[in-house]
């Protein structure tokens, strides 16, 4: 079976079947991470361009490692060292990379829509590794894999997302993904970070500024990183955030006893999450990281692996994107 997906630009455009297929495909790669010898030959001879126009540690290392464990070579571009700082346009930069004949490109960019912009102009598969405030699809997929492992299935959970929803691509991708599986989603944070219009983003979403209300009956609690730069515009005192929105043990008791705690990282202990919760039995923070490798290996395998000369070219097969 083929995924029939030319690019991975976001979760919003994926079907339930495509999501389930990706998670199923990630399963063997999950087990593979426990092998003593972590190298496959699946993508031997393939090259993946890893173009990070915005700084990142974990996502970049995760994609690079995923490609490497599949046997692919990587070519890395980092924003600080790139010609972007010399004034080259995004289009010229990616066309230059494309001219070195990679078989796929992974893009992280601070502008929402940059991967979609690139996908329309290049002939190779584009994987979105996070674009501005838009989407971070691999994060939502690895979260879904973690939820499915820990809770048995993806259907119909009560999901609560805490923090700066407005600026969060992680929140958007998770909202789209879990909404497709019938979740009731509660978004909670300071009101300026949780605009009510978010309720129209997907079915089953509601907004509240009261954390106690948000946590009641939650099956999954997703804590977002508070970007400290956001605390300054508009100013919000960190002490106020801790007082009203930090996920601590007492508050977590308002959720279902078996509620799962997720955090996309990097985590600021003592700000958005109490260390006791972060390290507690309900937390799956480190599993998320391992699952990130599995999901990214599955995606690279299907998107980059199918782009060989004898297989139909994904970019020319866009009409089947919603199959």
């Amino acid at each position, binding site marked *: 079976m083929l995924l029939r997906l030319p690019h991975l630009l976001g979760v*919003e455009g994926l079907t339930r079947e495509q999501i389930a297929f990706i998670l199923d495909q990630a399963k063997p790669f999950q087990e593979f991470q426990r092998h003593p010898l972590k190298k496959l030959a699946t993508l031997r001879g393939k090259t993946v361009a890893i173009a990070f126009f915005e700084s990142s540690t974990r996502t970049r290392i995760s994609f690079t490692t995923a490609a490497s464990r599949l046997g692919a070579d990587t070519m890395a571009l980092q924003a600080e060292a790139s010609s972007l700082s010399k004034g080259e*346009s*995004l*289009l010229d930069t990616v066309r230059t990379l494309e001219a070195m004949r990679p078989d796929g490109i992974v893009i992280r*960019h601070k*502008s*929402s*829509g*940059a991967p*979609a*912009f690139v996908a329309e102009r290049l002939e190779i598969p584009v994987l979105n590794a996070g*674009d*501005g*405030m*838009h*989407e971070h699809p691999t994060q939502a997929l690895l979260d879904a894999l973690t939820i499915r492992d820990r809770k048995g299935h993806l259907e119909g959970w009560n999901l609560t997302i805490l923090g700066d929803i*407005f600026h969060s*691509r992680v929140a*958007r991708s998770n909202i789209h993904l879990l909404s497709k599986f019938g979740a009731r989603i509660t978004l909670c944070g300071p009101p300026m970070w949780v*605009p009510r*219009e*978010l309720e*129209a*983003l997907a079915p089953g979403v509601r907004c509240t500024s009261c954390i106690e209300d948000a946590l009641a009956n939650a099956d999954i609690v997703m804590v977002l990183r508070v970007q400290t730069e956001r605390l300054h515009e508009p100013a919000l005192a960190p002490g106020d955030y801790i007082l009203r929105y930090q996920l601590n043990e007492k508050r977590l008791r308002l959720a279902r006893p078996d509620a799962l705690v997720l955090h996309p990282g990097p985590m600021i202990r003592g700000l958005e999450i109490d260390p006791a919760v972060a390290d507690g039995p309900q937390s799956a923070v480190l599993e998320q990281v391992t699952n990130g490798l599995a999901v990214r290996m599955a995606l690279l395998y299907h998107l980059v692996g199918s782009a060989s000369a004898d297989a139909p070219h994904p970019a020319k097969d866009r009409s089947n994107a919603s199959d």
Partner: protein
Amino acid sequence: MLLIKNGRVLDPASQTDAIRDVLLDAGRIVNMGENLSAPAAETLDARGQIVAPGFIDLHCHLREPGQELSETIETGTRAAARGGFTAVCCMPNTSPVNDNASVTRGIIERAAAAGSVRVWPIGAASLGSKGEALAEIAAMKEAGIVAVSDDGRPVATARLMRQVMEYCGALGLPVIDHCEDASLFAGGAMREGVQSLRLGLPGIPTQSETICASRDVEIAEMTAGHLHIAHMSARGTLDLVRRARQRGLRVTCEVTPHHFTLTDEDVRYDARYKMNPPLASRSDRDALIAGLADGSVDAIATDHAPHHPASKDVEFDRAPFGITGFETALALGLTELVHPGKLSLMRLVELFTTGPARVLGIERKIAPGEPADLTLFAPDHRWTFRAAESASKSRNTPFDGREFRGAPVAAIVAGRIVFRR
């Protein structure tokens, strides 16, 4: 001598709607009537076509001097003629800014030498449009400006707006304001709403426009000047204009074709959908159409804003604001407003002719002795707009490939055919 035969003359000033012949000579209309003959005249058969007073565009950017990579007076006015316009008012945000009489004269001389249609410059309100000291407004008026504006940005402060309104009130010049609150606008790329949240693009709330427009209306009351609100995009701004008029204030406004056609739901990661003010909500769009129909809106203005391709072919949030508009304005009015029955043909013509003329304090009509500026169009002609065939130097339009019903067929300036389809 030019004789236009058998056209359906639509003249809002006299409310004429009849099949008439129109005879032009020496740059003037000399006669209008039935079965005119002039053996010496060149004849233009306008059977099945509308003959209207020459269209005026109150708001465009010709990019000369200084930004000729995007447009020149020559290419811009050629595109204007292809859109049926016979006179265009160009905004002063060129390099250098049109804030003194020598730049104004330069534009007018260039237009006389290379322009297809009449070019009526708009002068800056403040020096360099920086919002500090007043520009040389009286000297620019003598040189030929028809209005003042710091377009691209609002007149910076209430205090400066008061001075500009007082001064221009005495000079008889309208003050055209681009209404925007800088702190609410800050970094925005599209209208704030569900779609901006979905796309993750920084939003600009409607109140960015209404707060500034509200300030301007209050200042109009202090000064007895003439306030004209540029490219109005929001229902709230329209309400402000209506209330201001009820208070007897001299407040006029314009709406662009893209704001009566598209909404924020149309926005995608394509900078051809990025303009300022941004595409508004469906409810705003519907309110603007109601305002166009009921007389609250004075003019349709294009805000033709060419940008050379490389500058627009970038990430959405990094792209400059603005789209081209001359060649699609009338077609959008016919296709989106007249044919669906939202506006009468006469009202549409008014919004392109007597409406903008009134804003400028001039007359526009088809009568003996008037300048021979006429626009001819085929209201039912079906065609597809191709940006690649545009006369503009730029291609930044979301309407590339759009199918239209209704097209300009000729533009006549001072008795001379400057465009013929």
